[in-house]
């Protein structure tokens, strides 16, 4: 029997999040965003 543990709290496949880059929208005013 599998014991794989999902880390997704919402219904699988239904993801309403923004892309990773956008989740830091207000913090991307940086030269370092190129890194």
């Amino acid at each position, binding site marked *: *029997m*599998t*014991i*794989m*543990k*999902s*880390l*997704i*709290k*919402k219904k*699988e*496949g*239904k*993801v*309403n*999040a*923004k*892309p*990773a*880059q*956008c*989740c*830091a*929208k*207000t*913090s*991307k*005013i*940086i*030269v*370092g*965003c*190129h*890194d």
Partner: protein
Amino acid sequence: MKYSKYNIFSKIRDSENYFIINLLTGNADILGIPDAEKLKAIRNGEAFSDEAFYGELTAKGYMSEEADETRLYRNRYLDFLDSRNKDEIQLFFVTNYSCNFACTYCYQDQYNNPNLELSNDVIDSFFNYIKKEFAGRDKYITVFGGEPLLNSPKQKAAIEYLLNKASDEKLEVSFVTNGYSLDSYINILRNRSIREIQITLDGTRAVHNKRRFLKSGNGTFDAIVRGIDACLLNKITVNLRMVIDKENIDNLPDLARFAIEKGWTKSQYFKTQIGRNYELHHCQSAPDKLFGRISLFEEIYELTKLHPHILEFYKPAYSIAKFLSENGNLPNPLFDSCPACKTEWAFDYTGQIYSCTATVGKEDESLGSFYPVITQNKEKIEQWESRDVTAIPECKDCNLQLACGGGCGSVAKNRTGNECSSDCRPITELLELGFSEYFENGKVPNNFSDKILDYQN
């Protein structure tokens, strides 16, 4: 059924467990050793007998029919384009390339500083241009340099004029500043729509002053701290950046402690970021002092184990690991991590237009002008606009593409001469650290079933 080409599967650092994520289907799981062994066998095309496990992998999209996966990829890509077209645009405005600092690692030190002055005509032309060119789009302005907040009456008048124009257009403004004269700008900045002010401190007093000093050689730490205090007092958001290399990383615990003791970390107007000191355009005098993309975060990972208070000051993203731990889901697939000419543009006081902060001020990177006349190099602009993981040959078969997004177009162009090439990120290694930090706390569980109970609590 095939093992998905978008699976990212690896062992968690300092743990016996493994993780698997798939950004296309939005699933993330932790596996104990038995399941990890089964998954390795499946990935290698070996026969298996655990139907229940196979069923779970299929239900979560870790295994799929190739045609289904291709269709899902296409649909998610179209969603991404649609979403980006509605996304807010960041418009950088460089008031000058001159600076009162002589930082040891300045990437703009070889820039020309055209002997022109910022005039109200240029500011008017900038606002006229963005009003027409980006009509109907959400947008905000980030004032950039050089150092934009120089302590002179002329500069203060120009900044005030710019803020008035932004206010007329109902646009928020951010600043990137060294922070040295910030407290003298507070009266100009307070009660304005300031989104945030990025300020750099590279450590506590002695360490910072050795790296970020005035052209006269004098230290800058105390003045910057006064500026940060003044911003927080006036409810202006500060985004504190620490630029790290091998010479100051050991000071991170001290700077974190300093910020905590100042009460900054308790403020809702205070946030932080860490930037790697790296070679953007040209080789530095001491490249051996620089961290690589993964070695920096390996060091931070080890430091946070020794000094957990660092996490009160700064929580590393470790690719999408922090996002997953804080949100309980994965971010949408990142088909493009380069905002240049899509959700980011840069303009300077000479009237030139550029793709982003990495290219702004580089003569050969100009994409046109907004002053004194409007010109656009449409061919160059289209090259930047077309860059995403579907257009970068190296990304096409990479399993990390939807977490990496192809990296930075400017860095890629510096490497290959072509912005439509890859700037790879060490996604798997970052996730190995991040899953340990945020899901395992660096501890090796004695019993995986016990660990499941921990997650549910």
